[in-house]
């Protein structure tokens, strides 16, 4: 069959829409036990019985059709726009059996838009624990719909749902509530003015613009006349509507649902007495953070050494089997170590994603939001900002997206602006290699100096984020109404499959994403480093031979001198030395300068860039770390990577905005170039100044 039907998955946050989506489409979109995991529309295809194909759209969760945050607005915009190519032929409202009453509110609203609607009652596996039983036939009649009782965890009910979707023509489009009963006279006049329009839809358009700001909707013009009612009046009507809907729902559920409270076990409240406690709550949070940190630093050491070894031998092996030459050097000493510089971080990044996804899947994140709201508010943030700040330790991009469920625009903007200060996983490669070069090996209170330095860098990142939020909160003059509601979902045992999937997917995309950039940059850099303009480059050999003619150098040393002279006069060397004056006060040489510039594409490119440049500059076999240790400061003599220049570099990377993708996402999320440009300039200037001060004080 050629016709595809559009199916939209709609429902309250955290009811399992994405889980149903994954079950229908076989895709693996991210699932998590936190209201607001999905913040964008996601699409997939599902094959239905009898050859019908369905185009399934997963939407962000929403409590009702009256949006109060950006992610919720996506749903309303879709449902109010019949011309949208994704406008659903069928709405599938996904509900959580434990919260059926509240979930049905949205269901009745969708029904009133007269879209064929199927009701999915999900999480059926939890019914017996909660003592819930349902009279499905009764509910189907009174809610004028078809019901699929599903459990995506147990893989039950999905076939039934597919069957229902394929028979969507038989589903009633009768509304649940007679809209006119909200206010007879008002709706009568509305009806007269727009005889061809659905009343409830008109009502939504009117209230939506009032609630959420203007949207460009060509379909219904001239509703402006009906905003004559004051905001307060409109809101009163919306309250009345809500009460009416709940009356309807209560009536249906009185017969359709029985809850035997003596059967219900509520672990949530018992656990939350401790987990959200004034003292224990914070203590537990602290311990969890320490544990994460410990895992990232200590537990990953063994697998990391293992990977390091593999790449060293791989590079050796390539050198042996390929013919000797410059190109082999590029592969063996530029690309392989460059990629190795990323692959080596797989264990740490996997741990990071593992913990974040367990925190999300268990339901703990909402508790952290609760515990931190008051503190964060002091700094102009919302408790909900803690989620982006924590997940920002993995990557700023999803973190910036995760701000979408913050209702207050000012709090959201500030969160977006400060999130890139948190130490993301791309900084880890840079931090670790520099730390291992410049921080001594000793121990303090059982913790190694190196681990402490890393911990300190994380703290600095977090503190800077919070502190700049405080300043932004004072500077930014944005008025926006604050309000804050967050649901405390039931605790759930994280599903191994979901956690594993997140870890694998995220790690894979980190490695491939970074790998591609590194490969491209290595090759470009290698060419720029292997060729150069003019006399100095072409006659390097003669120049050096004449210069050192009397010095009686060994052949090897002479070759070394020639190679580095060539490098200095190559395209990259010339560029590098042109910018050297700017970075010299920070304690860097031109090679680090090039590495900094190339890592504006992405921070993790730093190590790969140095590997490539060094591979052209000399050709003894050593790991990238040994090479860095052997570099000599061109001015001061002595090692290039000293305590002072190392700290300076660490601080530079802690503060600088070096990530194109983050800038792009900030542009998209704030809908203007102003904020990302501001972010780039301020963060980078700040980084420069701090790095400068650090080097000048410490040298």
């Amino acid at each position: 069959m050629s016709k595809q039907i559009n199916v939209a998955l709609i429902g309250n946050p955290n009811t399992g829409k994405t889980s149903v989506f994954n079950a229908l489409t076989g895709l693996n979109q991210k699932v998590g036990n936190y209201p607001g995991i999905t913040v964008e529309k996601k699409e997939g295809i599902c094959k239905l019985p009898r050859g019908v194909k369905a185009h399934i759209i997963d939407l962000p969760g929403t409590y009702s059709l009256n949006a109060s945050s950006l992610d919720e607005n996506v749903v309303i915009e879709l449902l109010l726009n019949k011309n949208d190519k994704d406008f659903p032929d069928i709405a599938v409202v996904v509900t959580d059996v434990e919260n059926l009453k509240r979930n049905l509110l949205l269901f009745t609203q969708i029904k009133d838009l007269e879209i064929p609607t199927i009701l999915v009652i999900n999480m059926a596996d939890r019914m017996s624990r909660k003592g819930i039983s349902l009279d499905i036939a009764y509910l189907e009649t009174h809610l004028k719909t078809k019901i699929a009782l599903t459990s995506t965890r147990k893989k039950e009910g999905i076939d039934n749902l597919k069957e229902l979707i394929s028979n969507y023509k038989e589903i009633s489009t009768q509304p649940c509530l007679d809209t006119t009963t909200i206010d007879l006279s008002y709706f009568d006049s509305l009806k007269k003015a727009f005889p061809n329009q659905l009343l409830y839809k008109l009502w939504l358009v009117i209230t939506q613009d009032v609630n959420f700001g203007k949207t460009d909707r060509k379909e219904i013009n001239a509703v402006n006349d009906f905003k004559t009612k004051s905001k307060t009046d409109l809101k009163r009507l919306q309250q009345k509507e809500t009460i009416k809907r709940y009356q309807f729902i209560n009536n249906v559920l009185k017969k359709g649902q029985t809850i035997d409270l003596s059967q219900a076990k509520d672990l949530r409240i018992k656990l939350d007495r401790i987990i959200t406690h004034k003292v224990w709550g914070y203590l537990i949070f602290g311990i969890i953070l320490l544990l994460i940190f410990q895992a990232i630093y200590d537990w990953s050491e063994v697998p990391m050494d293992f990977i390091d070894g593999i790449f060293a031998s791989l590079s050796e092996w390539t050198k042996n089997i390929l013919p000797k030459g410059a190109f082999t050097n590029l592969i063996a000493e530029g690309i392989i170590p460059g990629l190795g510089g990323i692959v080596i971080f797989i264990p740490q990044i996997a741990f990071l994603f593992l913990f974040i996804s367990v925190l999300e899947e268990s339901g703990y994140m909402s508790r952290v939001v609760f515990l931190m709201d008051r503190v964060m508010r002091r700094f102009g943030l919302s408790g909900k900002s803690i989620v982006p700040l924590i997940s920002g330790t993995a990557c700023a991009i999803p973190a910036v997206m995760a701000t979408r469920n913050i209702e207050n625009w000012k709090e959201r903007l500030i969160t977006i602006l400060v999130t890139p200060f948190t130490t993301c996983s791309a900084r880890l490669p840079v931090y670790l290699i520099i730390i291992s070069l410049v921080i001594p090996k000793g121990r303090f209170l059982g913790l190694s100096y190196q681990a402490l330095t890393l911990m300190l860098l994380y703290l600095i990142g977090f503190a800077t984020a919070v502190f700049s939020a405080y300043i932004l909160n004072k500077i930014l003059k944005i008025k926006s109404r604050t309000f804050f509601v967050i649901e405390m979902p039931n605790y759930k045992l994280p599903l191994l499959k979901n956690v594993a999937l997140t870890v694998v997917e995220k790690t894979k995309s980190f490695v491939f994403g970074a790998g591609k950039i590194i490969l491209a940059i290595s090759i470009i850099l290698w060419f720029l480093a292997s060729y150069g303009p003019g006399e100095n480059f072409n006659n390097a050999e003669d120049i050096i031979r004449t210069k050192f003619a009397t010095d009686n150098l060994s052949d090897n040393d002479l070759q070394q001198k020639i190679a580095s002279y060539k490098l200095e006069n190559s395209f990259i060397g010339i560029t590098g030395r042109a910018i050297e004056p700017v970075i010299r006060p920070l304690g860097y040489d031109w090679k680090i300068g090039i590495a900094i510039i190339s890592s504006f594409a992405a921070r993790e490119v730093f190590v790969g860039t140095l590997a490539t440049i060094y591979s052209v500059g000399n050709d003894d076999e050593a790991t990238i770390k040994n090479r860095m240790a052997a570099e000599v400061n061109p001015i001061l003599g002595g090692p290039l990577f000293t305590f002072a220049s190392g700290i300076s570099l660490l601080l530079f990377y802690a503060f600088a905005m070096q990530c194109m993708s983050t800038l792009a996402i900030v542009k998209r999320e704030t809908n203007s170039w102003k904020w990302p440009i501001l972010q780039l300039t301020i963060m980078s200037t700040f980084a420069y100044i701090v790095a400068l001060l650090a080097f000048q004080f410490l040298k």
Partner: protein
Amino acid sequence: MHDTLAHLKKGERAVIMDVSSNLIPLKLLEMGCLPGNSVELVQVAPFSDPMYLNINGSHLAIRKETAIHILIEKVANE
């Protein structure tokens, strides 16, 4: 005069009496915070803000600034 939700102590229960204040977001009503529904204060963060409530089976946290507009009548714990 009724008490407001902000007066509720940890573990106490009440019935919601009035939510008509303009400062209460519609979203809260839609989440079940409606007159006649029962509410229990499950937990408070330091300085009683935010407040973790169980409203008719919905577990939510709201800020104190919202709670002071919700009028309630306490019920004795059985």
